[in-house]
């Protein structure tokens, strides 16, 4: 069993704490069948770019980046993440860095300044997973088209009356110089924390409003060999989502998008349930769907 990335440095005031859905991601991606599929899929070609959308603590991306040699059959991967919460971006950078250092220790750890011997010229080593950065943004918005090879999304999937408003730069003011944010008013802190946490779970109608936005962006952002893993809960009607992608790709409801070269690209869209958990009254509570193009 592959180790779960360490998140002991993460403060869960405003960041989603790894839970059943996060662990389903880890279990699914490290299952024998998915590992075999991914290793086969990425056995050739340039270094894969892995994007986790809404990474939170970063536990899922860290697991994939750290264990890339086992999961993808190669360590020359570039990882990237997005989150609406700046604190989650900082947390993810740290979680991913720690996991890579733990699973793929550097061949030449930084020599301490005390060492008196002349520094050796850095030697040639095998690739190690590399985290590019974490972007403070919504979904995959600033990503150029056809850049992402592996996309991971554990969305806000809980059905709610409405989705919270999108945060703006004004929601993340410069920290007060004497870090008196806590003193400024407990009420306001609580409100801000509740708001940021609501972004991690509130999915609007059928719990699908945010997921639909991401799904619609897949034809644009995924490379031709691109694969997305998206988690859905029972209320999201995963079976319907799978069927819809299989029959009409992503053209439905998006004016023109599906008919353009840019929108659909080549290859037929495929979707398959790659993992599930929490069987309740005969229904899987959570599933992870794998979406890709059959070229």
């Amino acid at each position, binding site marked *: 069993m592959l180790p779960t990335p360490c998140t002991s440095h993460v403060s869960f005031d405003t960041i989603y704490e790894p839970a059943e859905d996060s662990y389903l991601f880890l279990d699914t991606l490290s299952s024998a069948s998915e590992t075999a599929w991914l290793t086969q899929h990425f056995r050739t070609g340039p*270094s894969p*770019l892995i994007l986790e959308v809404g990474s939170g603590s970063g536990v899922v991306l860290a697991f994939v980046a750290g264990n890339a040699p086992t999961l993808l059959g190669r360590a020359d991967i570039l990882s*990237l993440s997005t989150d609406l919460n700046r604190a989650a971006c900082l947390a993810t950078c740290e979680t991913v860095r720690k996991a890579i250092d733990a699973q793929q220790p550097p061949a*030449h750890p930084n020599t301490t300044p005390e060492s008196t011997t002349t520094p050796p010229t850095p030697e040639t080593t095998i690739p190690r997973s*590399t985290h590019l*950065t974490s*972007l403070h943004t919504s979904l995959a918005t*600033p990503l150029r088209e056809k850049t992402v090879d592996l996309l991971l999304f554990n969305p806000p999937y809980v059905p709610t009356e409405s989705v919270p408003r999108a945060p703006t*730069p004004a929601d993340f003011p410069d920290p007060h110089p004497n870090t008196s944010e806590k003193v400024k008013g407990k009420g306001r802190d609580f409100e801000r924390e509740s708001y940021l946490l609501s972004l991690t779970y509130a999915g609007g109608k059928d719990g699908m409003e945010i997921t639909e936005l991401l799904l619609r962006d897949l034809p644009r952002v995924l490379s031709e060999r691109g694969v997305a893993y998206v988690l859905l809960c029972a209320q999201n009607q995963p079976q319907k989502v799978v069927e819809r992608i299989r029959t009409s790709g992503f053209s439905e409801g998006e004016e023109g998008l599906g008919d353009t070269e840019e929108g659909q690209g080549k290859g037929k869209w495929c979707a398959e349930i790659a993992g599930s958990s929490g069987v309740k009254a005969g229904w899987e509570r959570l599933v992870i769907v794998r979406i890709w193009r059959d070229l």
Partner: protein
Amino acid sequence: MKLLTANFLACAVKGCKAAASSYPLHFKDAELEMQEVDFQPEFIHNIIPRVDWEGLRVMANELGFPNIPGSKPEGDMLNDEQTLRDLHKLLLETHVVDGKLCCGHCGHEYVIKEGIANFLLPSHLV
């Protein structure tokens, strides 16, 4: 934020999506930091094919990085250790800690703080 990231990003403003000048974004007041990483020629080999070379060249020029080949290295150039080491430095070792990324089309500036670029848009631009 590693410099290579900029190769994958364009302006997030909706009206800029179709504009050619929304990529590459241009660094402004960039404070760079070098973080030594073991030299991994195989990694550089595997990254080169996926890099948009023109975007990388523009960025390297703007940041004053010398020695970046004018066109994407191919064939024998891929065996030239100095070329690979220069690219290794640019792609894997150089980080932007603070600064801005600016759109050449709408002029919007995305602020980078402590290595995190803020691509959230004010509500009137979403």
